[in-house]
């Protein structure tokens, strides 16, 4: 990755290690989300871990490095879309079964990855929503300049 802001963030050692660990953290977050119905964890924990991987990158490389690669506006939109999808899941449940937010998918076989009806899907939506939202909160709170405005 080309770094246009080499002077921001922490030292070279931290940056080099970050380059490896950030992916590990990110993948661990995804693992937690996908196995939410099998092992401890789920959308919220996984979402926060995904957000933390971004926070990790921001702390090591400085915020401009990250902001060059991700779009705040798009992140906000994705967050809203994930939230809408959760409500729409509820509406599909209402349409199919007559109960708001009811499970409308097959339960599948217990103890397997593809099972538990809509739970894995909702976990993914929640992870996207929580991850995007919390990273943006961190970004705004940490980069708020009291001198402006």
């Amino acid at each position, binding site marked *: 990755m080309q770094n246009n802001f080499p002077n921001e963030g922490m030292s070279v050692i931290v940056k080099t290690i970050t380059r490896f660990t950030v992916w590990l953290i990110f993948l661990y977050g995804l693992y937690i989300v996908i196995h939410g119905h099998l092992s401890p964890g789920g959308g919220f924990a996984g979402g926060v871990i995904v957000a933390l991987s971004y926070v990790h990158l921001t702390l090591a490389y400085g915020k401009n490095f990250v902001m060059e690669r991700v779009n705040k506006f798009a992140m906000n939109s994705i967050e*809203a879309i994930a939230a809408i999808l959760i409500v729409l899941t509820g*509406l599909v449940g209402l349409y199919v079964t007559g*109960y708001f937010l009811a499970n409308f998918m097959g339960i599948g076989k217990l103890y397997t990855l593809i099972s538990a009806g809509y739970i894995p899907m909702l976990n993914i939506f929640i992870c996207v929503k929580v991850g995007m939202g919390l990273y943006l909160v961190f970004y705004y709170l940490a980069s708020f300049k009291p001198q402006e405005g």
Partner: protein
Amino acid sequence: MILSQFIFVPLLAAFLIVLVARKKENIAAVIALAACAWILIVSFIAFFKLPAHGGMILNNTSGWKIPYTISLILDNLSSFMLIVVSIVAFFSAFYSIQYINHFTGKWNFFALFMLMVTGMNGVILTGDFFNLYVFMEIALISAYALVAFGTEAEELEAAFKYATMGAITSTMILFGIGILYSYTSTLTMADVGLQLRSVGTPKLIFLVYGLFIAGFGLKTALVPFHAWLPDAHPSAPAPISAMLSGVLIKTLGVYALVRIFFNVFGAPTVVLQILMLLGTLSIVIGGFLSVVQWDFKRLLGFSSISQVGFIIIGFALGTPLGILGGILHLFYHAIFKSLLFLDSGAVEYATDTRDLRQLGGLSKELKVTSATTMVGTLSISGIPPFNGFFSKLIIIIACISAGQIVIGIIAALMSIVTLAYLLKVQKHAFYGKKGSAKVLEKVPFAMKTAMIILAALCLISSAIMIPSIRKNYLNPIVDTVMGKTSYIDKIEPYLDKGSVK
């Protein structure tokens, strides 16, 4: 089926506003208004469909039966509250279309507004203790953010104060819910009541009462817990002040208190006496403090404390007449207090100040505002034939017939004080000699319309007192509250009592 609309329509509206309206801010107002109109219509449909369902509609979510899931419950009281919330929300949203032009971040405003409506609808409809807490937090968090919407120093400070107190007492409520859970091993309100019936009342329940009175009492702004209200309500933008004073303190406070203490705990005498005391204190302290205020909105804020005291003593009397008075005053106060807050917003919009010492002689330039404020003043201070007269009269008569003559006399005297402080507003803002503040801008169309319709409602809503309407529509509501734990009996058939496989 019909009940989940009250949740997902405003929720989808809020999410859509964030998704769509960030670049084109005018769409936000359209979406918000459409959602509010939808809820208003559905709330009336639900109200008139209710008798056909035997006075109770219960929708389970997620396809299981209570107590294994959360149910949305509509009975006479909640259906009535939904109508009050929808009316005030619709007119506040309509008013905001043009009012909010003085602020930046229109889409933030409407999204938070819709989330607040979602939270209140959720609190009204829920049949589950923990769910009540969750939706209360939605309404409160959006309220904190909206109080600080103008991001001026005073507004931020008021919001911080509100957030601190709100967070402390919400935690207290959660603690109370935990204690109840440990004792009954269920969270469904009706089931909790049922379990408490079978095990009797332990000492622990008094701790729960204390935690709940502190928790919901703060949201109602009863007197020892009122410190946040006179800061928070004036700091918010005017339509939000109307929402906060008009419906938020009533849904999160009065409604929750009534639902929990009357319908679940069966109106224990201790609690009624405490509420009576706090209500009387609120009437007196709120009334006298509002006389000395010079800030238009702050005066109205203290007045809200006083008027909520009337509602609370109505309910705390525990007689059918008192409860009728409480319900009526809740409805009427929602209308005329939101009208008065909208008026104060119009004055601020036009002159950029709300300090009564700088205002004066506005009645010629702001004709509509002046006239509607007059209607609001007459209503709130109980001049016939405006609506406030009937509710206050009923509360005072109920006090006397229940033997609480002292409280009746205090209530009667304090409604004269109400007239006094609102005449002060009339004298210093609209009549009298011209002040230093000039009218910089005309009050725009949408704001005027909302104010005129609410003023008309002040008169029209007196029609509820016509005996036939009262018998058909108000008495079932009173019966819901008076029936106390009959709420539990009505829900009991829906409870899944199947044994574990």
